[in-house]
């Protein structure tokens, strides 16, 4: 299935774009998507942490992604 991923902070620099479109297997999990991203963009492996937010919530790696989800790459936050 086709998904759209939004990126902020250093993740946007690594992707070279605010938004990318990706083709992933149906019923892919968050964990699988993270591994996939790390394979295409090895710079993600150098980060202190890498999280995905789905529909504006932090989620576990086991969550199954659906194509209507709002998926956002969350590199280490540094607000405040």
């Amino acid at each position, binding site marked *: 299935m086709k998904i759209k991923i*939004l990126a*902020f*902070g*250093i993740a946007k*620099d690594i992707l070279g774009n605010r938004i990318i479109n990706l083709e992933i297997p149906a019923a892919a999990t968050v964990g699988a998507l993270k591994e996939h991203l790390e394979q295409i963009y090895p710079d993600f492996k*150098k*980060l*202190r942490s890498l999280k995905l*937010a789905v529909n*504006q*919530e*932090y989620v576990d790696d086991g969550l199954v992604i659906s194509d209507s989800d709002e998926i*956002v790459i*969350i*590199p*280490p*936050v*540094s*607000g*405040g």
Partner: protein
Amino acid sequence: MTETFDIQLRSSSLSLTQCYEFVSHEGCGGIDIFVGTVRNHTAGKTVVALDFEAYEPMALAEMRKIAVSMMEKFQTVKIAIHHRTGLLKIGDEAVIIAVSAAHRAAAFAACRYAIDTLKETVPIWKKEIFADGEVWVAAHP
């Protein structure tokens, strides 16, 4: 009913007075306010400016979660959490957290909890801009 929280993410200057007036309350005896400002140096290097980027709807949601936890964990009365986005110069306020409580121990503990948690969970990213380059803060180990 008056609101208990005032959660804001904005690109305009933050206002200490606005946060203070929101939390000030006739029933409260202690108010603690934390202000995070832009420092002119980091690890010995001179910072020229900071650029804050936020995943806005989730950042607001996570800030609201912090306020809810503060109410649950501590006996707070009113809470203001204002965070700025965009380009900030040295001395600008990046975040203001104000908390009122009947007693000061709760105000201090809740305020400290809020800034510590905000720095861990709220999707906001800070880029330090130096004379000779820029870096996303805390991105790498």
